[in-house]
């Protein structure tokens, strides 16, 4: 298999998910200063007019990562090769450095549901999903990174989440996008220890980190909304995590509540401070 291993030029970058509401501010670079941006291909592919022009400006200015929503890597059915072909074109046209997808499914019984549903943590699902990831990597001729997702209930589980993720990453020979907020959310919702969970993952496969805010909707439930600022315990977990991995790009995700861009920039700065503290000296060359 001729895989292109796309390396990030600067692994200590702090990026921001590209959203329409603050796209022009981000390109202008006054209120928001990001080192790179991340597109959801499904929201930006095959788009022209005003948004097509904005996209062109953005990719001229920033290094680009892409984080998919609809490939549905955990679907029980066959891969959508037509869509995968369009993704491949997108990755090429946008000069995408890291392409990642969620370890979840968003399509079943030939219907998209446009949300991230939990895959049953089972042996047969490990083999099935790992095979699909290998097929995707072969088709795209590049490695992809798979993200640990937040989930609100296990479904017919026969193993724990960390084992499920580790087995898939190893069997698929793919990379890992570690979403630190999702670890926090899942640990809260399902009662496990965040440090123990992260320590049990194949941290040498981590090529990318996501950070975000969330919302507690019940005494025992947090929903991963991407609508609030990152809370201190998640910063603390991030601080703990970056000491255990090599430098990788870090992305802040925010999907709504954009009124205070200064506050969003503050989050980018806070993330940068933490990575600088741990990576600048230890990994001066990276």
């Amino acid at each position: 298999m001729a895989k292109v291993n796309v390396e990030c030029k600067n692994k200590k970058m702090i990026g921001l998910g590209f959203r329409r509401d603050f796209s022009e501010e981000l390109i202008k670079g006054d209120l928001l200063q990001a080192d790179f941006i991340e597109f959801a291909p499904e929201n930006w592919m095959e788009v022209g007019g005003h948004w097509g022009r904005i996209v062109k400006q953005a990719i001229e200015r920033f290094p680009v990562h892409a984080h998919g929503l609809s490939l549905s890597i955990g679907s029980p059915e066959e891969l959508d090769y037509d869509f995968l072909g369009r993704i491949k074109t997108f990755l090429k046209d946008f000069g995408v450095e890291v392409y990642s997808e969620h370890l979840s499914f968003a399509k079943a019984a030939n219907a998209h549901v446009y949300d991230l549903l939990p895959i049953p943590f089972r042996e047969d699902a490990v083999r099935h999903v790992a095979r699909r990831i290998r097929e995707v990597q072969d088709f795209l001729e590049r490695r992809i990174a798979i993200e640990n997702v937040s989930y609100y209930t296990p479904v017919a589980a026969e193993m724990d989440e960390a084992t499920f993720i580790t087995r898939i990453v190893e069997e698929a020979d793919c990379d890992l996008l570690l979403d630190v907020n999702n670890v926090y959310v899942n640990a809260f919702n399902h009662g496990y220890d965040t440090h123990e969970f992260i320590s049990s993952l194949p941290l040498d496969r981590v090529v990318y980190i996501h950070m975000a805010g969330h919302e507690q909707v019940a005494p025992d439930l947090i929903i991963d909304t991407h609508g609030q600022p990152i809370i201190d315990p998640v910063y603390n977990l991030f601080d703990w995590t970056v000491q255990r991995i090599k430098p990788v790009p870090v992305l802040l995700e925010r999907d709504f509540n954009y009124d205070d861009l200064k506050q969003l920039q503050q989050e980018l700065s806070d993330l940068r401070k933490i990575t600088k503290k741990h990576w600048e000296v230890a990994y001066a060359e990276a």
Partner: protein
Amino acid sequence: MLRPETKEIQEQLAMYCRSGKETPIPGVTKGRLPHYRRLVYNVVHGTIAQAYPITRKVLTDEEWNYLFDSFFVEHDAQTPILWKLPYEFYSYAKEHSYDQKFDKLWLLELLWFEWLEIEVHMMQDAEHPEYSDSEDVMDDHLVVNRDSRLIQLEYPVHMHAVEVAEQKKGSHYVYIYRDVETGTVRFINLSVLHAWLLDHLMNNMTESATDLLPEMKSVFNLQGVADIDLQIEKFLLEMLDKGVILGSRN
């Protein structure tokens, strides 16, 4: 290979999110599944309601909910690109004759028009031949803005409230286009003659308006109509001014 049982569990979960009808799924935490149902519903309903603000307003709550819920449960969404899902909503309403079910004959055309506004706003830039300012709109080979749709409606839902549009059944030609400079979507009402001319100029870039005049006069029985050439020229200049005609081909 995925075991049939695992496949079925995944399909049950996805179907539950659409229908809200709980089926016993092993190993789920009590009370957590409805959150998935709520999240999926909100994403899809938000996308559809935002795409069809006028339809949402002119249907009763009961009609809207019935149409949306039927779509949500019955329709297997095919597009991986969420902003294109509203087209499937329109197609679903058409396929299931909701205009007749609700006795609202304008409904499908209203949905179609609202969808086209989104499509024209978002679609990829069309390839235009190189062009420059037109010095003679009658004899130049004109370049028509192809970031557009030229449609025919029975009910002029793009201009009038639906109660009024219902009374004005006829042949209404509308050119919906995206301004190449600003990206703004606009529309223009056209007479059948002007629609014919624009369509021919768009699809046959080797002929000028003067070249097309004899055929146009024959099709519309315009022989002997005074000043037809001047009227066409006036129309083309207006289209040039509005960005419907971009210029003349280099």
